[in-house]
């Protein structure tokens, strides 16, 4: 009888673990990029080269959360001199505030698919709520390494002045469009 209870407990625990699946961000397949208006002429694009984080995803329970930590100094717009300037106190002050973070607080669902993630984005020590629209999310077995993997594409936008990044306003755009493509392996 005791053995049966123990086995049932282990089985229940396993099911719970499967449902509340936790994933660790794969930095090699995760991209945090941005686009901003440049002097009214065109759109300037850039990305961050180093990020880490975690994802928890349980569509059956409609539960999801995501945390992303971005190395501010890894900003990359394809122009070394400009990147140095972007790291300086004029923009994101990467030495004083080395990490940009996004921590979700709420998930929005469309049927059994994750449709949005709301959370706090912290830049230069200022945290503001941001909602990211999840354009697609898929989970399954990776075809090559056979590990369980989840990936999503999400977009959103912020006002940079909300975070104290005021340099060059209004000539350099106020609204920063964010794009996040993320893959994460199951722990």
């Amino acid at each position, binding site marked *: 009888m005791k053995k049966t209870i123990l086995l049932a407990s282990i089985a229940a625990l396993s099911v719970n673990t499967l449902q509340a699946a936790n994933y660790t961000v794969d930095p090699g397949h995760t991209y945090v990029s941005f686009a901003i208006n440049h002097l009214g002429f065109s759109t300037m694009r850039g990305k961050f080269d180093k990020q880490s984080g975690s994802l928890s995803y349980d569509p059956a329970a409609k539960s999801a959360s995501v945390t992303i930590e971005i190395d501010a100094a890894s900003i990359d717009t394809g122009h070394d001199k400009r990147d140095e300037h972007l790291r300086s106190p*004029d923009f994101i*002050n990467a030495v004083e505030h080395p990490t940009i973070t996004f921590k979700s607080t709420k998930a929005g669902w469309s049927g059994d698919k994750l449709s949005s993630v709301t959370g706090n984005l912290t830049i230069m020590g200022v945290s503001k709520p941001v909602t990211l629209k999840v354009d697609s999310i898929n989970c399954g077995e990776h075809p090559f390494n056979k590990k369980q993997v989840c990936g999503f594409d999400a977009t959103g936008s912020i006002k940079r002045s909300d975070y104290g990044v005021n*340099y060059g306003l209004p000539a350099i755009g106020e609204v920063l469009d964010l794009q996040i493509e993320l893959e994460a392996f199951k722990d």
Partner: protein
Amino acid sequence: MDQLLDRPEFQSAVIPFVVALLLYSGLRKLTATAWVWAIFAAFLVSAGLINGFILTPLTGTRKIILLILGALILAGLAPYLIRQLKLQSAVAPVLTILALIWVFGKVVARLDLTGIALFLIGGVGLVIWLLWAFDRIAGSDAQLHGAGFSLMLGIGLSATAAASALLGQIALSLAAASGGAFLAWVLQGKAVNSGKASASIATLPYVLSAALIGIAAVIFARLPWYALIPLAAIPLATSLIPVKFESRFLNALLSSLPGLVIALGVAFWVWQTSSSSSSGY
């Protein structure tokens, strides 16, 4: 008008220069520290235009603005509030070093032991050197403000060239304010004598501003640390030329020249070494 106020050259050159010029003229018969209050008011207006009186997040740059304003208030009041010259002399180095810790402490704490040691040696060494070098010229209005103006100009131009327009603007607005008060001194003469100021409390605003902005430009931006060496030599270079002429204009010119040569030379060199090979961005 608003468009003019948004332009960096007005925020950190024209406006602080004019405000300091007018205020020194108005205050010089009222207080011995007229130049301090003239620079304080000019810098306050300038900082408001550059930063918008916003204190959150309290970044290193905003701490620097607050500390410069605090140092100017202290230098303006100390001759009346702190009667003991010895106490005044002790206040300046202690406050400057505490200011360094407040602004850079969090960043330096993340460094390894070698980095922390280099910061302590470099930062404290720079403060002690500047206090000593400015001390030599504190008795001469021409030399003090000639060196202060040149030093802030050199730091401002170098910081701007080394990828932080914000730090550059702060230093340049101090240079412009100092230049405005200096020109008023040339045109109208010395302020009235009242109160007693030690050399180090009189030079505190220049020492603290130069140390904080210079080190911030090295740590937060990309100013090569060794650019601070010739810039820190400006007060010493100024002291090497005796200025005891009848003409205030001649005294001002001779006091400013060595510093200006160094400041412009360093700024040009920093601009050359840090400028991009491609066409702007």
